[in-house]
């Protein structure tokens, strides 16, 4: 085990508490940098989606994880970012400019959503954000002069510094990676400064936050705006990656996917956003595998343990029907949420911390370390 001896206030401020962190994150970054030259183009494409989802995950963590304001409307913010990019691109606005514009415009709209949210809490806030998402979806479908309605919009390749950046090129991957890394660094900076602490204070006790001089309404609006702006940036990249956007891509299911990202990753640390993004992006390949290979594998197994060929074919068809059933993805999401909420409330990152602690304390690890305790001192009187 490593013991840190702190000799300076900087020791509690710096992002990497000791050299071990520099080494492990440095290695991770190096691996990510050589990834596009080593991995297949399919996997690189998946990595791009991981970057985009993780960026949205960080945005949602700031709002939900740290400020305690739930949102099921982030697909709408993503859509606003995407459509802003697509719209401005038609007028030959350069990429850096419309990239900034999609973030800023989404941030402004996020702040506007934040205002009505000031009076709402918990489940009511969730309902309000869902309604917002539906409104945006509807506007996208109807405002044909700008959004081209249900026909959708095509997005041209990025022009950066006079060169083309195709959506499956390593450069595009690096762009997404850079946005993710900058977002994470920005979020970490925010969390170690007064604004971040105000967010956490609002999450844990609004009454106490107010009595400490925190303008709760202002900080809630700020949190909404920051979260929306980051999602807007991600939306711009998302549009470029897909090269075609239409309203039915930004549905409630996408918002739920973002919630799953932070729920599965862990809502208490930014690590959660990345781990959760990897998990969610990998569900699609898993479903494809289920559809393509699973029937054959199970039928083969059935044949091997003595089923007749007719019976094996029957099993093959039954499994194939199951694997390609409509709504299987939604069902899997539902099961995952339930399982994680019940058995792993701290998410994948929480599990990772437990594993790490197990090896650090090797023979002495107690399971009770992470047992949630209930302490009856909280006042309900002022709520």
């Amino acid at each position, binding site marked *: 085990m490593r013991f840190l001896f702190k000799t300076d*206030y*900087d020791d*509690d*401020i710096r992002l990497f508490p000791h050299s071990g962190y520099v080494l492990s994150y440095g290695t991770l970054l190096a691996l990510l940098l050589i990834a596009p030259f080593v991995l297949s183009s399919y996997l690189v494409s998946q990595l791009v989606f991981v970057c985009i989802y993780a960026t949205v995950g960080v945005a949602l963590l700031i709002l939900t994880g740290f400020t305690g304001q739930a949102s099921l409307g982030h697909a709408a913010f993503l859509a606003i970012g995407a459509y802003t990019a697509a719209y401005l691109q038609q007028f030959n606005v350069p990429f850096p400019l419309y990239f900034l514009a999609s973030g800023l415009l989404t941030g402004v709209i996020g702040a506007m959503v934040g205002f009505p949210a000031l009076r709402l809490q918990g489940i009511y806030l969730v309902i309000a954000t869902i309604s917002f998402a539906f409104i945006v979806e509807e506007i996208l479908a109807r405002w044909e002069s700008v959004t081209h309605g249900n026909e959708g919009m095509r997005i041209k390749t990025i022009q950066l510094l006079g060169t083309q950046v195709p959506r499956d090129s390593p450069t595009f991957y690096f762009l997404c990676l850079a946005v993710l890394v900058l977002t994470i660094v*920005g979020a970490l*900076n*925010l969390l*170690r*400064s*007064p*604004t*971040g*602490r*105000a967010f*956490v*204070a609002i*999450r*844990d*006790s609004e*009454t*106490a*936050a*107010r*009595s*400490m*001089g*925190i*303008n*709760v309404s202002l900080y809630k609006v*700020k949190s909404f705006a920051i979260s929306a702006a980051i999602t807007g940036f991600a939306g711009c990249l998302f549009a470029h990656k897909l090269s075609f956007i239409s309203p039915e891509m930004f549905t409630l299911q996408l918002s739920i996917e973002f919630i799953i990202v932070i729920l599965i990753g862990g809502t*208490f640390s930014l690590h959660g956003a990345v781990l959760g993004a990897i998990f969610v992006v990998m569900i699609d390949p898993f479903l494809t595998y289920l559809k393509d290979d699973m029937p054959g594998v199970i039928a083969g197994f059935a044949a091997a343990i003595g089923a007749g060929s007719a019976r094996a074919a029957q099993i093959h068809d039954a499994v194939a029907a199951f694997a390609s059933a409509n709504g299987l993805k939604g069902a899997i999401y539902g099961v995952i949420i339930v399982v994680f909420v019940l058995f792993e409330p701290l998410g994948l990152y929480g599990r990772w911390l437990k594993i790490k602690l197990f090896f650090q304390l090797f023979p002495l690890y107690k399971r009770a370390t992470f047992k949630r*305790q209930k*302490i009856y*001192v*909280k*006042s309900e*009187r*002022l709520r």
Partner: protein
Amino acid sequence: MSYFRAENLSLHFGGLKAVDAVSFAVEKGEILSIIGPNGAGKSSIFNLISRIYTPTSGRIFFEDRDITDAPAYGIAKLGIARTFQNIELFENATVLSNLLVGRHRHSTTRLWQELLFLPSVRMNEKEHRYRVEQVIEFLDLEPYRDKLISGLPYGVRKVIELARALCTEPKLILLDEPSSGLNVEETDDMSFWIRDMKSELGVTVVMVEHDMTLVNRVSDRVIALNYGRVLAMGTPSEVQGHPDVVAAYLGV
């Protein structure tokens, strides 16, 4: 003019008069205790001052300024800090970040500076940390700096809440039952700290308290309340000897 003044303060919930035309004044640098049976309106007065409730009528003045219409977050900025009867700490944060939240009213950095964590933000953070360390030393909280609140015992939380209030560098501090849930030694420590707050930090203290030993030991003046009205006001011994106070407590 008094340092802090409440004039005809009333708080009515429908027909219930939780606080009924209460007037009192606090002089700079004194320790004032508010006593009274359960439901007398003591905590309600604190909630009126810190603007969690809006008074039905009456005005509140602090340093000759009318603060009755200030927003709840503005009260701390004026230099009035408070603790809560049932502890309102930020459960899922460390002791250190709880105390740093107390420094919020002194932070001057802007959002974009914080996003980049410019040197000015770092300087600010170190300054906050230095002040927080002074409070930690004052209240002997050194062993708990990096502990999460949710894992700490009640007595320690009580002290941390006091520490957080002190981190705002208040001129006036409102303590809502500082000794409730504390054992004898912890109550002793608390009484020393309250007196030190007055003599070393120059903070004016208003506290609601049930423990008469603590009240007698620290307070300069005492106000006794019952049914939202002031029964008696004066030195601790005067108030305890007052016939109305005896009647209110003993029910005779």
